[in-house]
């Protein structure tokens, strides 16, 4: 919806984007989630590279990726390297294992999460806060 564009803050990290990584950010801005995929071995990797870290393959593309993941570990940090985040201290940082394989560092919505918690990339919150946000996955009904 066009109105959402006014609410979008800068996506932190996008200022470092290269031609190689730009599709990741474009997907996030559209409310989607994409990872680099190797055509030879079908692996997903993140951060994107010029070759596949698993098989060395050079045929890489971007593909829609599952938003689902699991919390591997999460901590509250009382110090931050980012001046703009210091007003939020302490804040939680989580290491998430995405369903498609890669690990990512993300901001858990709603506070610290336990290892093993099922989460999903929350596009709306990501676009609102500018950080990659994961929220507790909806329970299977």
């Amino acid at each position, binding site marked *: 919806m066009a109105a959402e564009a006014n609410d979008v803050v800068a996506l*932190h*990290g*996008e200022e*470092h*984007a290269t031609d190689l*990584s730009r599709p990741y950010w474009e997907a996030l801005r559209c409310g989607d989630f994409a990872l680099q995929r190797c055509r030879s071995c079908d692996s997903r990797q*993140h*951060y994107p590279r010029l070759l596949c870290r698993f098989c060395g393959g050079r045929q890489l593309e971007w593909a829609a990726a599952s938003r689902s993941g699991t919390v*591997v*570990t*999460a*901590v*509250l*940090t*009382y*110090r*931050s*390297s*980012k001046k703009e*985040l210091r007003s939020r201290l*302490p*804040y939680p*940082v989580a*290491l998430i294992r995405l369903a498609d394989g*890669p*690990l*990512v*560092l*993300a*901001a858990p919505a709603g506070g610290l999460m336990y*290892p093993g918690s099922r989460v999903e990339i929350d596009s709306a919150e990501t676009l609102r806060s*500018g*950080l*990659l946000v994961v929220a507790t996955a909806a329970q299977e009904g």
Partner: protein
Amino acid sequence: MSGGWIAGVAELPRAELDGVADPIGANAIAIARAADDAGLPVSSIDAVLTYDSLLHPHPMQATKVCEYLGITPSYASTIGAGGASPLFAVVVADSLVRSGVAHTVAIAHSDFRASSASRSAVLEKMAAVVGNPEFEDPLGPIVPTLYALVAEWLIAEGDLDREDLAAIAVQTRQWARLNPNARFTDALTDAEVLQAPVIAGPLGRFDCCLVTDFSGALIMQADPDPRRAVAIAGVAGAVSHEEITQLPEHPMAPVRRTAEAVYRAAGVVPSDIDAAFLYDSFTATVAAQLLGYGLDGGNGLKKLLCGNGIGPGGTLPVNTHGGLLSASTSGIFHVVEAVRQLRGEAGERQAGDVGTVLVTGVGGVLSHNCAAILAGAGHGG
């Protein structure tokens, strides 16, 4: 065995460092003193390896150090493996000596990080290089945040708890109290560690390494006077990843791999280790290595640490100089202290008859592990 021997060591006293404030000059004088300790002229050095200054790096630091010393060896280079660099320099030097490429290798690490202007610059610099600028740094983790994630991971798996981490800090400090050159020598209790300001996750102020000035050096030789030289019985390493999200496997896996390889190379088992010098960027780093190198004998950390187990008088002395947690911010002193212990020259800190020791280096977030087993004259080999 035709490996390297560490023939000389040197550590600049804290009081002298104030007057130096130049990593290149400090490396040079430390090397000269290590050469004195080895009974050698600096002109006999045919290779120099250094770990560069964090704040005042030089693109050819080792070469510059040779120029300062007035020597013209065959080889000189800085080693870049993060915190593992000093120990990795030992691994490289051992290879140079074993292969006959070099005969007398100097290793040095000096830096000036502690003055108030330097200290904040150090922390900012480390924060600037930690993680991935595009995908990790935006969340603002500092190095302790990343180690806290690993520590919390191991805690959730039941391998250790905060009390174990506190015990490591306390027992390391007890050794530091016996080291006139250690930065912090005040008594420290488990309660103080547990109640200290939290930095991230389970890691508080006393779980994190210091920021100090320091200068130290080693001389490795092919055929030294064996009376005061210690032998490199085996070396090993495992490069796993650099940034935490790129961990290809469980964080303990590369530690265990390095352990298995170094014990095999030296022909020893964990119970042969009389003292261990484990890179202690954080208490969690020590905990992971105590487990990964099998130093708990499979009985778990609590049993090992109970009754001051790794402190003075304990069953397995660890970091008898006080480590990065209490003494000084470089892994080169783990090697220096290991040599002192093996020579029987550790004075008040002498942990009995020390014949076989393990020394480790760790870079990144348990990313780059390396290890060496050293044996004193009349032991191992």
